[in-house]
């Protein structure tokens, strides 16, 4: 004989289970089967620090990040899409400048067509924040860096940069290897204009 309160609990379980079996009921934003680097950087910044200090994407190879993020999916209650996005970001952020050179990636100069503001809000905002003051521990206020020359800043953005005292380095191109030289110039121009 099942007690009434257990009937309530089992009913809740049934509803949740049914809910899960019909994922179309859940309106996921931009849900795709592929990971998205820009969304992934935001999800990484939002979720990983919920429990522990942020780990550097360069700590692990691409293949090792897969079981790690799936483990974190279970631990943190992430959706599959969040997991894939974070994986895409981590796998792109351990991408080294040397690897980029072998791939011949550094010669691309054409613009992606995105404005500097769009690039910032997709790739940079997760760590640097909408106000440029830093959204996660150790990320410096961008305004303290703008006295440097464009050439110096572009090199830092392109090759990645370790701020003194920061727990981890910014990955090359903010973790998005698809950005071209023109994109980097556009985003630097936006940063100079927005955070002067």
């Amino acid at each position: 004989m099942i007690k009434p309160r257990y009937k309530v609990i089992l009913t809740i379980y049934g509803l949740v289970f049914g809910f899960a079996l019909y994922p179309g009921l859940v309106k996921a934003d931009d849900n795709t089967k592929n990971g998205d680097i820009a969304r992934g950087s935001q999800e990484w910044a939002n979720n990983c620090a919920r429990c522990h200090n942020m780990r550097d994407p360069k700590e692990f190879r691409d293949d090792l990040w897969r079981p790690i993020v799936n483990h974190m999916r279970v631990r943190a209650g992430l959706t599959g899409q969040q997991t894939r996005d974070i994986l895409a970001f981590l796998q792109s952020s351990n991408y080294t400048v040397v690897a980029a050179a072998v791939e011949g990636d550094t010669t691309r100069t054409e613009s992606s067509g995105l404005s500097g503001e769009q690039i910032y809000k997709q790739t940079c905002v997760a760590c640097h924040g909408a106000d440029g003051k830093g959204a996660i521990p150790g990320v410096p206020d961008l305004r303290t860096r703008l006295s440097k020359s464009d050439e110096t800043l572009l090199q830092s953005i392109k090759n990645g940069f370790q701020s003194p005292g920061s727990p981890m380095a910014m990955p090359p191109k903010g973790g998005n290897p698809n950005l071209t030289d023109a994109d980097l110039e556009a985003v630097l121009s936006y940063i100079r204009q927005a955070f002067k």
Partner: protein
Amino acid sequence: MKNISRKVLFGTLFCLGMIWVPNLTSAEEDTAAMKARIEALEKELAEVKALLKEQIQQSATKEEVQAVKKDVVEKVQAVKKDVEVAKTEQAEWKTYDSTVHLAGYGAVGYTNDDPMNDRFNQVQFNPIFHYLFKDLILLESELELAIEDDGATEIVLEYLTIDWFMNDYMALVGGKFLSPLGQFRQNLHPAWINKLPSAPSGFGHDQAAPVADVGLQLRGGFPIGNPMYANYALFVTNGPELELNMAGDEIEAVETAGVVSNEDENFLFGGRIGFLPIPSLEIGASAAFGDVALEDESDRDYEAWGFDTHWWWRNLDIFGEYIQQEVGSLASSVAPDEQEWEAWYVQASYKLLPTKFEVVARYSDYDSTHADQEQEQWALGLNYLFAPNAIAKFAYEFNDGLDGEPTDDDRLFIQLTYGF
């Protein structure tokens, strides 16, 4: 007449002379010009010869360059071939169905109790194994290996689950898992994650917070609307066991280490829902219901409730959690009284960037129907982060418990921990 003729003759000769002399000057000039032209031609010829020689030399250099270029091209092709091989091998690894990963953490530590009782008392190693089949099945397991007081090595299977990712919003988790009630036990207790060397008062083994259980669990998350998001865990397990005191007339503790027996034939139902209205704030609520029984006795109620929260802003982290377990009364039992264990804590930590230091303060309170278990605690800590996962901790606990009990002793901790 003769004079006239002579004059004519001289005149004629003079005229002829006048005509001849300029002609003579022109010839000399032609000769000089010709000579100059010859000299110029000879010079040009010399220059042409020099140029020809130079060209011959240059053509030789080009050949050399061609040879070097060929050599470079061959080497680049060889490098490219190596890269392709490496990429192919990497692609094979990437597309391989199963992936193995070893994670975990370790900790070593020193403790000084008040009154003086100092020792190096923590040597702990927790390897965590991950085996992933595609993105469908994950086997994850953590062992805890620790040296006990007598020098023996204690080995505990902290958890072992096989997780089936059913869809984007749900994973079915089976096996022994850390209790999903609250946050500390399931997510914050590992040494490299916990900001202090000790657990909050009441959140240790056999205290107010359930530790682990064996059964089935549904876990996942779902978006509610940007940026709101929720996560959940629902479980059914064998449930806890009851532990009597030495006299055998009171229930002293609820054992939640996770057992594979279920002698009272009662299952425990429970879960947790976490809500994130903004990414930097999580609010969770947990509950579990079931029946428990002492051996050869009737069932009695068991309940657990909990609330937890975490808010962070840049270098500041604030955690808070409340948990309660309750065992109902049973008049026919050898231990008839109702028992309750309740604990809560608030913890704030702040990273002193750009230095590697972090300061921590925690207040925790543990209430029980057994006075010797109760404790009120302040803990202050200073951490040095060699890296986000390698931390040296220095902490001091101000404990207030029953006089004469270990719960009343203050403690100094030094711990070195590394998560990998």
